[in-house]
Structures are given as C-alpha cells and as structure tokens.
C-alpha cells in the first residue's frame, strides 16, 4: 500500500513538473460529450465539428503561437458521468478549458464543476434556461446554443401567424420539454390572446409508443400542434402520428422544435417524413445564405466525407471558435482573463455574427425555421424557404 501511494505520488509529480516550463505546449480543451447511446446522434457530429475547427486553426499556426488540443470523453448523456469526466479532464488531463455537454441534465451539472475549479466552460448544446439563470450563473459558464425561452418564443412567433386558435402541445415530461413548452405557451398567449391551449400531453422521455397520447390529443380536436419531441424520438412519434392521420387532422399546422426539421431527421425518414410541417434546425447544408456558410459547408462535407453534412457540427465548431477568439482577445490562457474576454464578445461564425451577452452569458443564437417541402434536388424533404429567426428582440 505504502509503495503504491509513493509510486502514484511520483507519477503525479512527473506529470505536473513539466507544466511550469513549457510555453509551447498545446492549449488543452476538454470535451465531455455523449458518444454512445441515443444522444450520440448529436454528440458525435458536434465533437467532429470541434475537431475540424481545431485542425483548421492549428494548420494556420494555432492561437497565441500554441496549438489547440481536444480531449474528448464519452459523457454517456448522463449528468453524473459528465461530472466525473469533467473532473478527470481537469485533474488528470490538466485541460485549460471545457467545451461540451449535450443534455439539459449534463450542462448545469458540469457548470458546477467549472465554478469550483474556476475554469471556463462553454456549453454548445444544452438548452435549459437553468444553465444561465440568475441564481446559477457564475463567471465561468457560457452558452452558445439557443435556450428554451428563445426556442419556445421563436415557435410562438411562427404559430401566431397561422389561422388557428385551438392549439395542443406534445413534449417529454422533463426539464427541456417542460421549459420550452412553457415558453411557447406564455409567449403565444401574449402575442395572440385569442389562442387557447386545448390539450397538453407529457409522454416520458424516450417514449416508444405515442399512440395513446396521440389518440387522447386528437379527441380534443386541436387545430395546430406544437411538439418538442426531439431527434430519433421525433422519427418514432411522427411515424405513428402519420399512420393515425394526425397531420391531416391538423392540416399540417404542426411545428416541431428540438430540431425536427434538421436534414438528419428528414434524411433518415425519407418518404415517411410528414412533408408540410414546420421544423427547426441548428444548421442546414442547403441554407447557403452567405459565402462564409457555403465555404464552411463545403469544408465540413469534405471533412465528414458526407455529401449532406450534419447540422450539429456547427455547435462544436462555434463553441471552439468562441474560445479561440476569447483567448486571442485576452492574450492569455488564464480562465479569469478568458472569461472576461468572452463577455460581450462578438465573432463572425459560419452562420453570421454571434454575440455573448454580458448580462447572462448567453449567445444570441437563433435557429433556422421553415416549412418542409419536397425538393427534386434532394432525396428527402428540406425546409423552404428557410429563415434564421433572430431571437435578439425576445431574449428577455
């Protein structure tokens, strides 16, 4: 036992000593991200987007003359595991910063670790308002994804324009589903007082059989449906809904947030996708609004060896980009200075300028929204016209 302890101490010393000396060592960034299980669907492309950014910037000489290095760990979409990995990344791998986490359970949990260790933590995907709520906010946490308030309100802005008043909601019964649905309902009632919520269904997270929920909802005769069933779960939900005639019953007055309009989802469903509904997405390879976006998509397509590259890579990419720009601005890799540099920082991302607000450390990240249509150019549905909904005016 004694010998083992001294051996560990010796090893630890060997690991720590070189730190002081070497200025040319890489800047290490730790990324806890779900790489297995259902959430890997998004975690994997997000981590690849981050990797692409790092390879590109290193090819140009890195940041402050130092290379960036990404250390990725599988958080298994589990808050405890994400915390464990984050601690290990800080203590054993000596990472300088954290960029990562996906679910609304992981984000706030890792934020606590970042606070304890005084390390900058950029969350590229978790949406729960809790992450940057006044009582949880600390100097080191930043979010570059949309949050539930922004997403729910964006959807309400769209639904308010539809010729409908009886609206139903379908969301998973947990933080994200509840928060985004509440934001939607509150904002809709405010901007369209005639709107009534006729039914709300709350299947458990990961539900596989939506038939009873859909039947119960259709019995209330809604004219429109708001759903936040996300990712692969949306595939299951909409296949069952289509079979039951749900989309026809509401005349395709249906909006699916939680990236139901992402190219990944429409691609995987092919002819089964309920074409005509509204959806949203973080990115879309066919958007091509600006030269910067076209260029990014072409690079990503090559990097992922995918003709229709993932819409989730952008989150890992811009997360890293914010960090790199902040290090440059601070001219330092000390978290205290980088955290200050991030406040109010505006950068040019592939999807346009993005700013992290000083008051709540939240970026003005809008999402792409659009009505899905069949386009002869692609073997699957796309959102057309696809619009970037800028949330700046309803973030508070």
């Amino acid at each position: 036992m004694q010998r083992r302890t001294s051996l560990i101490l010796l090893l630890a010393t060997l690991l720590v000593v070189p730190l002081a000396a070497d200025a040319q060592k890489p800047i290490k960034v730790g990324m806890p991200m779900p790489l297995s299980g259902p959430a890997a669907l998004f975690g994997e492309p997000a981590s690849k987007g981050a990797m692409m950014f790092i390879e590109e910037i290193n090819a140009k000489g890195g940041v402050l003359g130092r290379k960036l290095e990404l250390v990725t760990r599988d958080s298994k979409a589990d808050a405890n595991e994400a915390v464990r990995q984050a601690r290990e990344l800080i203590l054993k791998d000596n990472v300088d910063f954290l960029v990562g986490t996906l679910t609304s359970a992981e984000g706030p949990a890792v934020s606590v670790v970042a606070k304890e260790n005084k390390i900058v933590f950029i969350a590229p995907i978790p949406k729960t308002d809790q992450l940057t709520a006044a009582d949880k906010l600390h100097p080191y946490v930043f979010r570059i994804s949309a949050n539930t308030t922004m997403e729910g309100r964006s959807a309400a802005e769209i639904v308010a324009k539809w010729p409908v008043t009886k609206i139903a909601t379908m969301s998973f019964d947990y933080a994200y589903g509840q928060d985004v649905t509440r934001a939607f309902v509150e904002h809709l009632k405010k901007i369209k007082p005639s709107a009534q919520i006729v039914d709300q269904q709350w299947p458990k997270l990961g539900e596989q059989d939506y038939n009873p929920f859909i039947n119960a909802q259709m019995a209330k005769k809604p004219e429109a449906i708001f759903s936040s069933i996300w990712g692969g779960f949306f595939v299951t939900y909409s296949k069952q809904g289509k079979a039951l005639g749900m989309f026809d019953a509401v005349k395709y007055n249906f909006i699916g947030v939680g990236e139901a309009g992402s190219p990944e989802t429409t691609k995987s469903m092919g002819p089964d996708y309920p074409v005509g509904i509204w959806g949203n997405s973080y990115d879309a390879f066919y958007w091509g609004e600006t030269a910067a976006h076209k260029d990014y998509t072409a690079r990503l397509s090559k990097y992922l060896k995918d003709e229709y590259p993932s819409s989730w890579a952008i989150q890992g990419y811009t997360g890293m980009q914010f960090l790199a720009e902040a290090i440059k601005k601070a001219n330092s890799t000390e978290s205290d200075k980088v955290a200050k540099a991030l406040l109010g920082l505006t950068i040019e991302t592939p999807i346009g300028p993005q700013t992290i607000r000083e008051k709540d450390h939240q970026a003005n990240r809008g999402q792409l929204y659009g009505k899905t249509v069949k386009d002869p150019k692609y073997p699957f549905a796309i959102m057309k016209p696809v619009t970037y909904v800028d949330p700046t005016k309803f973030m508070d």
Partner: protein
Amino acid sequence: MGGPSSPPIPNSLPDPSFVFAQSVSGLTAAMFLFLIASGLSLIFGVLRVLNFAHGTFYMLGAYCAYQFMVWLQPGPGKFWLAALAAGLVVAALGGLVERLLFRHLYGKEELYQLLFTYALVLILSDAAKMIWGTQQKSVSRPPELTGAFKVFGATIPDYNLLILLLGPAIALAVWYVLQRTRVGRFIRAAALDRETLGALGVNVNALYTWVFVMASFLGGLGGALISPMRATVPGMDTEVIVEAFVVVVIGGLGSFWGTFLGALIYGQVLSFGILFFPRFSIFAVFALMAAVLIVRPWGLLGRPLK
C-alpha cells in the same frame, strides 16, 4: 421550476370512439410487447437464465430489417422478406451465442448470469454502433399497408391491425410447438428436470440451443416488425428490455400465457392510464407490477419457485 401551464383535465366522459381507439392502441402495444417478452420468458422458463441481452436481439432485428430493405430489390413482399430474414439472422446469432457462451452459465449464480448477459448487451450494442453508426435509421411501412380505416370513428392504421392479428397467431404457433409436438414435450420436460431428461437419452444441449434460437427469432422478428413504427437507434434495446421485464414479472416468469396476459394488461393500463393520470401512466404500470410482486410474487399465471 414549476410544472407546465395546465395539465389536461378530463372535462366530460370520454366519447366512445376515443375509448375504442385507446383500447386498440393498447392492444397493438401489447402484441408488440408480447413478441419480445415471450422470448425472454421462454429462455427463463427452460434455461433458467434471465437474458438481459434479449432486448439487444430485438434491436439487431430492427437493424437487420433496415439492412435487408437497403439490399433487397424493390418488389412485392419486400418488407416481409426483410423481416423474415432479419428474424433468421438474429436466430442464427442467438444459436451461436448459446453454443459458444451461454452454455457455461447454466446452473451458475444469478449474479454471474446477469453480469454476463449485461456484458453481452454492451458488446452487441457497440458492434451495432460500429456497423450502422449513430444516425437514426427508419424503415417504411410496406406499401400495401400504408392506409388506415375508420371503425366507430376511430382511426386504425392497417399496419397496426396486421400486428393485432399476427400477435395471437404467433402465440398460437408457439403454444402449438410447445404443447403438441415432440420437441415441445422435450422442452417442457427440460424445464422441469434437465438431468432425468438427459438420462433418458435426449440431447439436452441441442435442445437448449434450439430454445435459444427460437427465442432469439421471436426477439429479432419483433424488432423487424416494429421498425416501421419506430426509429431504429442505438439504445432502443435497453428501453424495450425494461418493458419486457415488467410484462413477464406481471404475467409470471417462464409462463407463456402469463406473458400474453401481462402484455395485454400492460398495454391497456398504459393506454387508459393517460386518461386518468395524464402524467403518471407509466407510474400506473409500475405500481401494478409492485402490487403483483407483493400479492403473487411468482406473477399472475406463474408457478411459485421451489
């Protein structure tokens, strides 16, 4: 963080067409669950191993169905061919797993069995991830069954109706094999007394392999048949295994008709649960399981273990 704005309140008596639709959706869910849970129950009944990896066979069935849909030329009956092929591939894999690995588990402590089958879950699902990636896969309903029809004002998709008929048909087929054939008699005898059966000159090892093959086939076929109604994604195995466990616990571990009954109850409780406790219908199912465990720990139609 408060709850959502206003939970739905059943304001009047539900109308009959809705009650009918709800019971049909409960029945469809029950038939799917039965397909999967029956294999789990069969393996436990005969081999006395709680096969945690059964859900993974179901997932592989769904993935194989997707794969065959990609490979096969379009033509009539393509989906059915793919589903059957998927069931057979999974059955073959099951046979292999039993021959090479499971064999060493019989008669060992439950803890070892559970650990081993859990390891199998991890290995097989990682293998699936390596082959098919993490992207969701989707299989379309067969073209001849994409429609729906209306009964008493309720919409019933054609595909669901087919599952409703297929469930009892498969139950009867398995029951026939178990009750009316020579192999079935051996299987039932093996469940009761393995040694004596061996002493009578029956090749019990081969018999066990066949039971495993049959159970894996049911699991794989279940996965293939469900793929048109769900997304095929990593992790669908662990979701279904919990539901299948609840079904066999309610019905009685190792009891074939118990599993059928358990699945029926599960489907209806879930369907009507959301009428009365909209946000706690899953709780109703687990409460039922707990009640069964307290009153009849061996399940509704099971036999107490000696």
